[in-house]
């Protein structure tokens, strides 16, 4: 699904990612954790095609395609989805128009007919329930004046509508109350299947209680310093990142 070998990224003189390698197979759920500023969002943004970084990698492939050859929209149409840590407000474009344009762009790419507004609305309505968003949000401008939690749920709505093959979720669980967390976790779990993969960036064990990952990676200072199973996240929760530094010399378990 996703194959990264020795990915480096810099902005000007600052190197942010310093040689990341990661394999994500179909059906797997990976969690990426790590302190603030360690490069998690940078990794997510680069995977979804954000410009502005100088990137080198021995390999950076999604479904066998070289990601660096693809525009952000091509990646999205091929099923790559990134939920933003800070979703962008776009005044003047309604949520429903945005969703439908995105959805039909993906359909067109697959050689399918666009869905008209009536059929599309029917489809979206059923998704709204799953993420517990009121229908009135469809008429509102994209993310504009949404609360933090509403923005996160709106990301989940987009994910459910676009049905990606690889979903990269950048702190979708941050800033959610307990009910919203359960809703978001429900969305993620509903996406889980043999041919889909999920990469969740998170700071908290609480999401991982709902969505149990197959692999956990710790990112620090632009490198993956430790990888393990779900229990790695629990250890981290108890002992904090300081514990990692003490074991910095040890081999990663992979």
């Amino acid at each position: 699904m996703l194959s990264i070998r020795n990915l480096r990224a810099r902005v000007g003189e600052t190197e942010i990612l310093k040689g990341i390698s990661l394999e994500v197979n179909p059906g797997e759920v990976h969690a990426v954790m790590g302190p603030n500023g360690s490069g998690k969002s940078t990794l997510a943004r680069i995977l979804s095609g954000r410009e502005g970084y100088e990137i080198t990698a021995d390999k950076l492939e999604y479904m066998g395609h070289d990601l660096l050859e693809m525009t952000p929209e091509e990646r999205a149409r091929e099923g790559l989805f990134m939920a933003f840590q800070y979703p962008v407000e776009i005044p003047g474009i309604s949520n429903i128009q945005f969703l439908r344009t995105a959805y039909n762009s993906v359909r067109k790419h697959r050689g399918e007919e666009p869905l008209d507004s009536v059929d599309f609305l029917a489809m979206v309505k059923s998704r709204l329930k799953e993420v517990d968003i009121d229908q009135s949000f469809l008429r509102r401008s994209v993310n504009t004046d949404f609360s933090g939690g509403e923005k996160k749920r709106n990301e989940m709505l987009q994910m459910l509508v676009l049905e990606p093959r690889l979903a990269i979720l950048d702190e979708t669980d941050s800033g959610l109350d307990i009910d919203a967390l359960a809703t978001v976790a429900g969305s993620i779990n509903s996406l889980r299947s043999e041919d889909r993969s999920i990469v969740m960036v998170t700071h908290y064990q609480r999401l991982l209680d709902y969505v149990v990952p197959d692999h956990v990676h710790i990112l620090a200072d632009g490198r993956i310093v430790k990888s393990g199973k779900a229990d790695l996240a629990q250890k981290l929760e108890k002992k904090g990142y300081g514990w990692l530094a003490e074991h910095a010399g040890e081999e990663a378990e992979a």
Partner: protein
Amino acid sequence: MNAFAIPDFERQFDVRREQAPAFPDYRQKSLDDLRQQGLPGAKTEDWKYTSVREVLGETFVEATPAAPVAVPECAARHLAVMVNGYLNTDLSRLEDLPEGVTLCSLAAARDNHRDQVDAMLGRVVRHDRHPFAALNGAFFRDGLFLDVAPGTQVQEPLVVLWLSGAGDAALIQPRVLVRVGEGAELALMEQHRGSAAGHFTNQVSEILVGDNAGLTQVQLQDTGKEQLVCGTHVRCSRDSRYRAQTIDLGGKLIRNDLAISLDQPGAEADADGVFLAGRDQHVDNHLRVDHRAPNCDSSALYKGLLGGGGRGVFNGKLIVHPEGQKTRAEQTNHNLLLARDVEIDTKPELEIYADDVKCSHGSTSGELDPDQLFYLRSRGIDSPEARALLVRSFALEISERMNHSRLRDLVGEQLEPALDRLARNELEG
């Protein structure tokens, strides 16, 4: 045919005097005003960013009513077609206008509605700082007279199409008088459509909005190779509502002077605008709102979109006179710069001589937000479409402020395709 170079106005005036034109006193006064202030040059403050050198260097022929024109399809129920500044009743559709509406050429009004014409002509327009208005006053030939009797409602928009014919570059100088009587309501859409010829139109409209009356006026301008200077002078009476939308879809040179005077308590005015300018296009909007009475509200929102090679100017003046206590007013201009080789000069100005007022003004200019573009693209929307969506959403905020739905649709039909062309950088003069 008479050749007319504008700087030669003194001699032209003498020639014309021989023909004993109508309204000699007003013409003489206009000439005096024009002589006193002179034609705009590089040093004229109000014309600092807009050069009329080309217009002043040209020799025009005098416009005639009998020019061949292509009339665009227009489904409007009430339609007045103006050819080279003259009303063409054959091309117009005026049968269904409600009783109480008088629409005729200015020449006909002079014969049939003399008192009303005398009460209005030259009484709303200001010549000082408007040299082209004075020029129009000295030389206008004909134009349009529109009167809506007290209490009359014209909900279905009246569309006035300003067309120009083929032929040599002509000087077109119509005068428009509009009165909306007490308690009456009018939805008016004027559309300027340029032909391929290099005409110059210098239009002046004088508008009175009566007590408790409402006028919604759209001016949609798409002038191609033609140059247009359009002065719209409005006086608003007690408790009246004036709503203007100026929609510029581009042109070689467009200059609007919209001057609104809130003369009596409770008057309200909104002046909104969208202006588009692409390669070799220059659009200049000068707005002035005078608050001369207490408890008047005004707001203005102008949005400029500049594509490669485009040039835009916005100047908004808000003046609260000593009588204008309890004024609430705002003026805002936002501009979207879609290429590097564009230029925008924007200046909102505020002059307040009353102490109990709430006024604000401001302007911004910027490029498309890269974060918004990336967000759209990350959902599969390709880059040209993402640009087009953002360009539309920027401009259509103005449409959303239009509460007359038919007018909104009529504007949308023309604005939306122009926005798409602009987003693709295909707007050219």
